[in-house]
């Protein structure tokens, strides 16, 4: 199957919205993509304050001069456990319903431009936790890229805790 990733072109070289620009991340070895329009920063979170009795995916809070950023673990949201001890996680800064969240991932890669028409439905065998947070997949050369459903990932639904 052909690789749907396009050759990168200078800004303005093609019509806006013609491609889906995804910030690629790795979680437990898997490749995921987050729409660039939802990402406003990439940072390494320091001085996280833990939140007693918070849902498991909430790792802590960052307090920045009164602006609070909630740090969530994409690993925990996907049910693959915590990051290995001693590893450094990177966060994507994402706004969700007026709040700032930091979505912790194992690593952040490049930005890929993909043809939205090449996006395919989730494979039927995909784990239900992963499928619940996926908008579909792109089949790259030798690898599957899962497009993250940001709103689903950051939704604070009590029912998700029991999943």
């Amino acid at each position, binding site marked *: 199957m052909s690789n749907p990733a396009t050759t990168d072109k200078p*800004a303005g070289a093609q019509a806006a919205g013609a491609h889906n620009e995804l910030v690629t991340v790795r979680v437990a070895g898997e490749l995921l993509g987050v729409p660039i329009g939802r990402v*406003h*920063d990439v*940072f*390494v979170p320091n001085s996280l304050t833990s939140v007693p009795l918070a849902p498991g995916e909430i790792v802590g809070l960052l307090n*920045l001069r009164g602006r609070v950023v909630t740090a969530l673990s994409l690993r925990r949201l996907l049910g693959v456990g915590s990051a290995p001890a001693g590893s450094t996680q990177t966060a994507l800064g994402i706004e969700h319903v007026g709040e700032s969240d*930091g979505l912790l991932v194992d690593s952040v890669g*490049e*930005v890929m431009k993909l043809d939205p028409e090449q996006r395919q439905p989730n494979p039927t065998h995909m784990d239900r936790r992963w499928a619940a947070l996926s908008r579909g997949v792109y089949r790259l050369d030798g690898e599957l890229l899962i497009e993250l459903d940001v709103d689903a990932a950051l939704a604070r639904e009590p029912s998700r805790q029991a999943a």
Partner: protein
Amino acid sequence: MAFDLSMPILVVDDYQTMIRIIRNLLKQLGFEDVDDASDGTAALEKLKARKYGLIISDWNMEPMTGYELLRHVRADEKLRTTPFIMITAESKTENVIAAKKAGVNNYIVKPFNVETLKGKIDAVVGS
């Protein structure tokens, strides 16, 4: 907010993904004329070739850091008045003090969002 949206902006960062994200944020704010450079040395080359209305630079770059770029810009007769916003990590508050002493117009502490960026640009070049 009253920006000159035609103002050329130079984004300087050695992390290509971050450049793409900042470009996208600037596009959301309506800025279309955005160039980028991968470190201070590359930025100085671009600054020699074109007049920019604003520089947005990361601090932590190699081989030339954002701080060194700022010092070069402020020491250059032709560039010294160019508005300069520095981006620095949350834990590096000492960078903010050094950048202020070196003549930075404003700074952004990570993590930031589009509203923060808009506010800082407005504070520096808004009318």
